[in-house]
């Protein structure tokens, strides 16, 4: 299946505050834009993969959306792996097409935690609330603290990641936050749940994004202008919640990347640009380690000196990611990977031929990886 399937179109809504829109309306707009970008009609679509909105669970959400776009998909429904869902759905779409179950798939998500409910992000963890154990942020902070304790990782090294990504976003007209960051500003940013600073934490945004998946052959028949090849994908999921995870600083991102790199016939040294899920800077650092760009525990040292900024050895999150473009869980990374391979990014990496994209969900609980290549 290596290189047989493509992302034919990408589309999104505005990012930031979209009060009163609702996720169905946002999904429809993203799908409309993705179809237009691919240059195909809705009638060509026969599969609809939908990420369940994180902020509010709704039963039969996939078919509610299908109704809103008057589609009767052969393959469809919602998938729930948090932020890892997007890449997983794209890979399931490829597999479904390969198995002859469908031909053209829309893969879409929408969420409105900014103006809707934020309950999902601030929840208490059952009876542990009596000890003051609340929030997703605290789970990441617990992992970050252990990484610092075990490997001597410094706050400034997490700052390197935040600075690079925020400065990429500052250059993106679609970004919800266009505020450049310096290391000094990062270091003076207040603690939320120590060791997590405000500037380690992603945005909370409303918005939607969708992509169209089909075979490269079908894209040629349709005359799709800028299809981007999917060379490989993989998944890996850590079943235990953070406190019960045997080793806090290791996740199944490693297995996810190994599967994707094996399928693509590539290794980390072959990658020109990366879009790494950046809900928190610790997630980026551990993903870089787990993917094999550096050894476990050496992520702090590795990101120093602007290595992950445009102009560095491995530019990451060139549209600003979750820290700056939009807090949307993951599809912005897929879309920016596509733009880099098309050569249309606002922070285009010169001669970039390959891009690895990571998506993850929960508190480094679920993980999905995809490798894209220029046509």
């Amino acid at each position, binding site marked *: 299946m290596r290189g047989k399937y493509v992302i034919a179109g990408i589309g999104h809504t505005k990012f930031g505050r979209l009060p009163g829109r609702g996720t169905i309306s946002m999904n429809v707009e993203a799908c409309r834009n993705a179809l237009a970008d691919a240059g195909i009609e809705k009638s060509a679509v026969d599969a609809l993969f939908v990420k369940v909105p994180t902020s509010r669970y709704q039963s039969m959400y996939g078919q509610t959306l299908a109704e809103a776009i008057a589609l009767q998909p052969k393959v469809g429904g919602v998938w729930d792996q948090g932020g890892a869902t997007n890449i997983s759905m794209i890979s399931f779409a490829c597999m479904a097409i390969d198995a002859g179950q469908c031909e053209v798939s829309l893969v879409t998500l929408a969420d409105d935690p900014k103006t809707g409910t934020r309950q999902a992000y601030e929840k208490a963890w059952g009876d542990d609330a009596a*000890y003051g154990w609340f929030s997703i942020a605290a789970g990441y902070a617990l992992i970050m603290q252990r990484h610092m304790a075990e490997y001597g990782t410094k706050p400034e090294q997490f700052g390197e990641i935040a600075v690079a990504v925020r400065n990429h976003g500052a250059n993106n007209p679609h970004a919800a936050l266009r505020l450049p960051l310096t290391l000094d500003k990062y270091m003076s940013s207040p603690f939320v*749940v120590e060791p997590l600073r405000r500037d380690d934490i992603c945005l909370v945004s409303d918005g939607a994004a969708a992509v169209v998946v089909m075979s490269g052959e079908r894209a040629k028949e349709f005359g799709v202008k800028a299809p981007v090849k999917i060379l490989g994908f993989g998944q890996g999921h850590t079943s235990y919640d953070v406190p*019960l995870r045997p080793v806090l600083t290791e996740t199944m991102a490693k297995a996810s990347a190994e599967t994707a790199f094996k399928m693509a016939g590539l290794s980390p040294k072959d990658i020109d640009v990366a879009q790494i899920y950046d809900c928190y800077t610790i997630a980026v650092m551990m993903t870089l380690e787990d993917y094999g760009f550096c050894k476990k525990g050496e992520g702090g040292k590795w990101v120093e000196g602007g290595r992950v900024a445009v102009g560095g050895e491995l530019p990451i999150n060139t549209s600003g990611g979750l820290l700056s473009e939009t807090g949307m869980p993951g599809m912005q990374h897929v879309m920016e990977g596509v733009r880099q391979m098309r050569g249309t990014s606002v922070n285009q990496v010169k001669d970039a031929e390959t891009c690895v994209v990571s998506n993850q969900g929960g508190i480094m609980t679920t993980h999905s990886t995809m490798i894209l290549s220029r046509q």
Partner: protein
Amino acid sequence: MSFPLPEPTPLSKPYWDALADGRLTFQRCRKCQHAWLPARAECPECLAAEWDWQTASGKGRVISWVIYHHAYHEAFKDKVPYNVTLVELDEGPRLVTNIVNPEAGIKAERPVTLKIEDEHGVALARFALV
């Protein structure tokens, strides 16, 4: 303003009752001897439904910790900054807890010992740095 107290279920009630009685307990599988917390109906290792509550030594070590500077619940507004710490008991199970003497310097792998404290009338399993 209500404090978010534990809500014991038929499964977890023995745990909270034992704490009120001054004992920290955990579950141990009769088949494979695996030990775990929090309460669940089956052993997560071998899936057996036969297990016993056992009393812990109360000794453990710090795995990691965080300091809340932001209160996510009204009841914790006047407690910030406060610590939440992950402790692994010598017997294996892990607990989300608080260190009662953080001024002694919370560090990964530092040994801790059980210090049961009353919180709004409920016994909680907190720990002290040794």
